[in-house]
């Protein structure tokens, strides 16, 4: 337990540095850039916005008063108060509220997709290694490598075209139907699931290959270990050898890289959301790009990055608890 705690503190330190890096980059970027996109931005705000609000936005984007150091302090202070400025696309809504509205949907989509892809991919990889040279082992890696070569969002486009637009099996856009009220009702739940199915499915298909190949190669190593032979020699049933001896040991390295894969999955989720007009952070991101809503863009960068860092920290701790070797 002490070991886990000490490890947790070390990791916390690392993620604190990473978070500080992201926050600082976010501060310096608008100041370093050639040209002056921010002035155009303020021009568009003139008259629409309270003078104080405009001033706070200027602080945030680096056009406040004082030296760069005092500006930095002001920036950090407003960040800690959750002050991210005012959105242009959703004027006069504060950026913080806009981002909060999309968070749950992105978590739902990315979370569902990554958990299913991880479990299914690892299972397929384990089975392929178990039946080495079998049908699954021969065909799956190559065909998944081909599938994995398609961009995430292109798969989403194709799936949306075939199954939503042409066959009309699934809804075309949004996270739930216009005819249902959000709430803890069965009809709302059903609507959310039918809207989630296709975007999550395309993400699972696009990311399955990585998990499968990783599990397959660690599984082959584990199967070569003496403990497996010993278990077999003792007459333990094949099913138990597979699950309790082989899979259990082989899944740990996959779990370790789960955190690393999160950033990739979130990026994929953002693009998938755009195709399905799924109201998460990705959909907000493209709104922000199209309307040149810099405050929203920067808020999104911070929110997504910090969430991924937090999730990584959580996964690190989880792995440390399950796998003493990582500590």
């Amino acid at each position, binding site marked *: 337990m002490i070991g886990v705690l000490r490890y947790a503190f070390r990791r916390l330190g*690392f*993620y604190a*540095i*990473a978070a500080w890096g*992201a926050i600082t980059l*976010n501060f310096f*970027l*608008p100041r370093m*850039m*050639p*040209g002056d*996109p921010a002035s155009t931005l303020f021009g568009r705000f003139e008259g629409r916005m309270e003078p104080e609000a405009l001033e706070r936005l200027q602080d945030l984007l680096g056009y406040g008063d004082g030296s760069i150091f005092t500006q930095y302090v002001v920036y950090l202070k407003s960040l800690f108060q959750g002050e991210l400025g005012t959105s242009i696309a959703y004027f006069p809504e504060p950026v913080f509220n806009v981002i909060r509205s999309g968070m749950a949907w992105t978590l739902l989509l990315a979370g569902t997709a990554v958990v299913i892809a991880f479990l299914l991919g690892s299972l397929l990889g384990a089975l392929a290694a178990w039946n*080495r*040279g*079998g049908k699954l*082992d*021969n065909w799956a*890696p190559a065909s998944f*490598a*081909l599938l994995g*070569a*398609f*961009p*995430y*969002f*292109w798969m989403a*486009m*194709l799936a*949306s*075209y075939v199954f939503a*637009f042409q066959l009309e099996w699934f809804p075309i856009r949004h996270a739930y139907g216009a005819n249902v009220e959000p709430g803890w009702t069965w009809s709302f739940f059903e609507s959310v699931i039918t809207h989630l199915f296709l975007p999550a499915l395309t993400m699972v298909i696009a990311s399955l290959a990585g998990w499968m190949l990783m599990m397959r*190669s660690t599984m*082959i*190593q584990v*199967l*070569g270990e003496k403990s497996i032979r010993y278990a077999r020699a003792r007459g333990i049933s094949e099913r138990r050898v597979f699950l309790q001896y082989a899979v259990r040991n082989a899944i740990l390295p996959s779990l370790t890289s789960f*955190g*690393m894969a*999160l*950033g*990739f999955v*979130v*990026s994929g989720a*953002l*693009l998938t959301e*755009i195709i399905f007009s799924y109201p998460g952070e990705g959909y907000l*991101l*493209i709104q922000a*790009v*199209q309307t*040149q809503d*810099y405050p929203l*863009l*920067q808020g999104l*960068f911070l929110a*997504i*990055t910090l969430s*991924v*860092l937090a999730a*990584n920290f959580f996964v690190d701790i989880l792995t440390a608890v399950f796998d003493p070797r990582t500590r």
Partner: protein
Amino acid sequence: MAGSRSPLRRLLQGIWQNKKARAGAILVGFFALVALVGPWLVGDPQSFDALPLSPPSADYWMGTTGQGQDVLAQTVHGSRQTLLVAVIAGLGVVLLGALIGGIAGFFGGWIDDVLGVITNIFLVMPGLPLMVILAAWLPPGPSTMVGVLVATGWAWNARVLRSKVLSLRKADFVQAAVIGGEPALSVLFREILPNMLSLLMTSFIGATIYAIGAQVGLEFIGLGDPSSVTWGTNLYWARNDSALLMGAWWTFVPAGLAIALVGFGLTLLNFGIDEVTNPRLRSEREWQQKLGVPAGHRPETVVVRHD
């Protein structure tokens, strides 16, 4: 082994003899040829004179876009900038990765610690949001694209190359060069890096695959230069012109297929190079040939299938 031939030539020959690598090389070569000479063989991708959103026909083999441009011409022209940017960005990623990973692995100590933390930070950061804010503040264009791709993509390579440098650092010929008084950077670039040629090659191919995907994604969001013709902007316009709603599959299928085939070809090439150069895999295959046993019957030998 024929000692007279250079190691690079031997490597290339080995690659050509590997089935997977050859298939990949042919696939990649085809698209390189299209990018090189294709634009002279098809029409103007930016002329708007055809009927918008007409399906594939004898006149327009891949149909037309929402603005009446020829999709075939757009796909062929698009290959040029897409692949050029990807290759340059891929080179940049490997160079930066080799520089940072090489310095970290070679010097060790606190330099390694500091560079390690920086590398890990870039590894855990989600790529897309970082690319988006970088690209959003910079003027759109190919050089911005290359810069953004290199800035966000180098970390994985740095990590892989660092561990290789670390192991080569202990080799006798490197020790000899260090003791012989060769300057550190010259040891790194003259003794160590040339001896990890195949790893640098697979890293470069991997980085190019990454650069194609990331570039296309960014352009699809609208952070490329929408007036240029690339596979990513083709997809951007397909979405903007409501291709899905209009049932115009031909506006987005060609670009996606091209991206996937190039990516698949590069992946095959990488698998093949790995098989040719990784001694563990090579020895397994040689054993197999001698004994005539398929790999499946000897679970204790290591990893990855071939053929």
